[in-house]
């Protein structure tokens, strides 16, 4: 037990006074909740890669259609059903304009004597698929984003009011939600689309009409949890008004969960839009969305597989990216929710 103790110099046993304020010092750097979350999500490789993919897709959705000289809606029957042909890649045997004509495989661009390069090929009406794809992505994203914002808006408002005021208000509001949930979504949507002119807004409304329920339930649960927390009680004893309690105490605390949930709502909306378009209830030609493109492509799957390939890859990428970002955010913002 006593090793080398003799070697210690005597003066090291002098008594010293420690400034007691020293003990109150916090050495850690000050981090806000969001800074802390950013540090965490930065370590999540899947989420970061997904963010880059998503950013790329969003940028392309705006820039893409202008990268080629073709108009995405212009019909050019002589250029119909062209396979993809990309300069540079053609030497490697990919996207070299080879396609089946009858039973033979030949360069269709040569056969038809076309000098332009259609990067992703054309559809049966000769429209450029590259510009159509990005145009469609833009519209799909737009629909999903607007639908998600409407979901959040109604859901937060409805769930928040229901939980915050509680009692009878909560009872009535929750019974209404239960009735709404009882009706199959597809029935409501089909009815909606019969009444309304088909188009972007019809789809947005169709998606949002029941979409907010999930959000409202989550918000309700969160508000119920937080409204009896001691910091809210403390604000009440200080005389804080309802709007102050909601704005300063409740909303900032449930924001993380709202954002996480929105990250999962967006891909669901994209998928639902695609589904509606696919069953023919969606956008009408010549407008394009990922759903209509997939619908078009699937009809010619046997002869023109590229028509399905590109929009299918894109929608898959979008879904995976959004879900991975959502997962990453959930881990970063709310570590307790993991289990």
């Amino acid at each position, binding site marked *: 037990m006593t090793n080398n103790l003799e070697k210690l110099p005597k003066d090291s046993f002098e008594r010293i006074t420690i400034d007691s304020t020293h003990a*109150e010092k916090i050495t850690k750097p000050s981090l806000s909740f969001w800074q802390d979350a950013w540090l965490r999500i930065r370590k999540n490789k899947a989420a970061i890669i997904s963010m880059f993919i998503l950013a790329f897709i969003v940028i392309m959705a705006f820039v893409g259609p202008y990268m080629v000289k073709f108009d995405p809606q212009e019909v050019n029957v002589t250029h119909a059903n062209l396979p993809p042909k990309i300069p540079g890649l053609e030497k490697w045997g990919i996207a070299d304009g080879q396609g089946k004509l009858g039973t033979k495989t030949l360069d269709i661009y040569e056969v038809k004597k076309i000098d332009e390069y259609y990067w992703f090929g054309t559809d049966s009406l000769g429209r450029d698929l590259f510009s159509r794809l990005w145009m469609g992505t833009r519209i799909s994203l737009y629909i999903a984003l607007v639908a998600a914002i409407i979901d959040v808006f109604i859901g937060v408002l409805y769930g928040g009011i229901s939980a915050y005021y509680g009692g009878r208000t909560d009872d009535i509001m929750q019974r209404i939600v239960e009735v709404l949930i009882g009706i199959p979504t597809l029935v409501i949507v089909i009815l909606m689309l019969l009444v309304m002119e088909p188009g972007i807004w019809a789809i947005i409304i169709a998606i949002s009409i029941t979409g907010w329920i999930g959000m409202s339930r989550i918000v309700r649960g969160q508000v119920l949890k937080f409204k009896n927390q001691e910091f809210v009680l403390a604000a009440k004893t200080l005389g804080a008004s309802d709007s102050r309690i909601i704005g300063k105490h409740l909303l900032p605390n449930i924001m993380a969960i709202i954002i996480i949930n929105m990250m999962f709502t967006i891909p669901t909306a994209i998928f639902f839009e695609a589904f509606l378009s696919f069953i023919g209830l969606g956008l009408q030609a010549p407008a394009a969305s990922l759903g209509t493109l997939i619908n078009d492509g699937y009809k010619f799957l046997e002869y023109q597989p590229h028509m399905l390939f590109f929009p299918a890859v894109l929608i898959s990428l979008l879904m995976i990216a959004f879900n991975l970002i959502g997962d990453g955010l959930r881990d970063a913002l709310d570590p307790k929710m993991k289990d």
Partner: protein
Amino acid sequence: MAKKLLEIKNLKQYFNEGKKNEVRAVDDITFDIYKGETLGLVGESGCGKSTTGRTIIRLYNATGGEVIYDGIDVHNKKSKKDLKMFNRKMQMIFQDPYASLNPRMKVLDIIAEGLDIHGLVKGTKERTARVNELLETVGLNREHANRYPHEFSGGQRQRLGIARALAVEPEFIIADEPISALDVSIQAQVVNLLKELQEEKGLTYLFIAHDLSMVKYISDRIGVMYFGKLVEIGPAETLYTAPLHPYTQSLLSAIPLPDPNYERNRVRKGYDPKSHKYLDDEEVTMREVTPGHFVLCSQREFDSFKKA
């Protein structure tokens, strides 16, 4: 005797009133709090001591009874202005230092909340200055103002909660188990701080706790609650040396003390509500046995207490 600051008369707080699962959390209790004193309220979990505190400060609407603060009934006031006045005079310190501070707000904004609500400061500069002053009052410093609650330890957080309550310069503070979530070495810091503040600012405390040794230390008078009822109330010293109600006796016999010799010879007393053997026609109410020492008892018991 000192001036009565707060009179609680027949206070009742029932949850799910009239339904099958009615809970009488606070069942007809009456006591006074004098200006400048500390009244300790003890009892086991679920006895209604926290509910009493929360009802007094109007976090719950009382089912019945009156809370009279400085001659004015707190629960019958309706105008916003009057309510705000009470919010300044009466403040609360909470139990859980982790749940009582908003995790998304900076310390500066947490402490300044009362100042903002009541418009007590003009301009950012005065606000910051006042917050720094409050931080120093509770033994922290200005460097802490721009941090978030999660960066502080339990004891520091509890002191932040005290600073927040002090911001509106209250006269009366309800401390709802302020130390039970803290480590032993930190409890003493907080209790000392509360005592210092009381001397400095002439505060009145209602100190709710289940730790009897701390309550004994900080309180002038102590009330004991059992299942929604106040069973005994009296000066701290009297209550500890000569407890009358069998429940108080049982509670006192169970306090763990850091003294092995005492622990080896400890005699625990149980308490069974049936042991009173009250008859149907007996009136069980608070009766004053010695001046200031009230016990919930029947006339029969009262007589025997008097004799002893």
